[in-house]
């Protein structure tokens, strides 16, 4: 297998990284909202939040992607397949991140929140300044694993015609008749990306640990 082919794969992996990063970002925002709704204690918002989490954790991502891809035009939203793919990935990771965050919030020591109460922080300020940052620090390892999960899962967006690393590998494999080295290289590139992400996660944990009682 030539370097040119390998280079094509590396270029395509840039798209994998972009789609994953965007999905993780939006997924996190959505997850924070879902988690807030779930923990709000108000059934009117907690129920739908829990249903959302249950659905997106309970069904294969592949089917979510296809469903969203075909459903959006039906409800009058004609968006490019890249957008549909990112929506699918975001919803999926949001449901996992929401569960992770919920665990994090439930592990925030009660006394630390009471101290915020005593200092007069409003519920909103307590959430934003105290509970959220502590919960995120507690959940960094799990969030890192989830980021790696999404990087791997992003290989599925090839089914709705989005070009990324796996699509490129598939195309090159069938046009060059060299599936073995090409898929192995694709796997290698995923591995490298994920090792970097894992390293970043460890680094983030270590720098956050300084701020841990």
């Amino acid at each position, binding site marked *: 297998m030539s370097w040119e082919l390998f280079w094509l794969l590396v270029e395509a992996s840039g798209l994998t990284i972009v789609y994953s990063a965007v999905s993780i970002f939006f997924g996190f925002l959505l997850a924070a909202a879902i988690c807030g709704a779930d923990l709000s204690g108000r059934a009117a918002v907690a129920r739908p939040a829990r249903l959302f989490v249950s659905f997106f954790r309970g069904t294969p991502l*592949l089917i979510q992607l296809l469903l969203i891809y075909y459903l959006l035009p039906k409800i009058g939203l004609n968006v490019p397949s890249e957008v549909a793919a990112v929506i699918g990935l975001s919803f999926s990771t949001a449901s996992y991140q929401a569960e992770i965050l919920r665990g994090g919030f439930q592990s925030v020591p009660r006394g630390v929140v009471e101290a915020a109460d005593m200092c007069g922080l409003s519920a909103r300020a307590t959430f934003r300044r105290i509970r959220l940052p502590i919960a995120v620090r507690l959940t960094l390892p799990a969030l890192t694993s989830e980021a790696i999960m999404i990087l791997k899962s992003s290989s599925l967006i090839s089914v709705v015609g989005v070009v990324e690393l796996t699509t490129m590998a598939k195309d090159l494999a069938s046009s060059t008749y060299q599936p*073995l080295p090409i*898929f192995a290289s694709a796997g290698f590139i995923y591995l490298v990306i994920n090792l970097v992400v894992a390293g970043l996660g460890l680094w983030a944990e270590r720098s956050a640990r300084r701020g841990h009682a």
Partner: protein
Amino acid sequence: MTSLLGYLGGEDGRNILSGLVNTCVLWVVGTLLGTVLGFLTAVARRYGPRPIDWLLKACVEVIRGTPFLVQAYLLYFGGPYLCLELGGASACLTLDPFEAGILGLTIYAGAYFSELFRAGFDAIPRGHIEAATTVGLDRWQTLRRIILPEMTMLVLPAMVNMSILLLKETAVLSIISVKELKFQVDIIGNRDYAFVEAFTILALVYWALVELCGRAGRYAEARLSRYRFAHS
């Protein structure tokens, strides 16, 4: 609704049913073989020589660090190019989609399960193993009578989750044309231009299976919880 029921009779119904059966076979066999492979890997890494541990660790990291779809592609499309020359004759890893699917799932599950079991081994208090040695159990007896039962309690919830993950991964195998549930429903959806309907139904079926599995897991956990060791 009548049209939906129409699908369940006749040819389509038979295809959907066979797809569902295949999905369940892939799921169950993948989980079982994966458990065995994962357990052997964990044991080999724990009791085997250092180089074996390193080698297996590398394998596990590679499998956990790459997408299942790429692994499936590699096995299915790359397999035929993976040949072993033996005295003039050559044998290649040519697999039909279903075989590739089972093999892929087993390897994938094995890697994750091995990590679960390793964590399980580590979570068993050293004192329990020492206690077994003091009353005269040998290594194998200790493993079978003490470590295994205790570890089952510890890793059961994670194993149920892993099994659910595997069920969802089986859908990916439709991409290498394994004739499982998603593959079969997909065909009908394509033929009738009923994509949204097809994928909605698929989602609901998987959701139901996952919920069922989760509930069964929690039930088993509750039933077994009285064997859980007392915390000191």
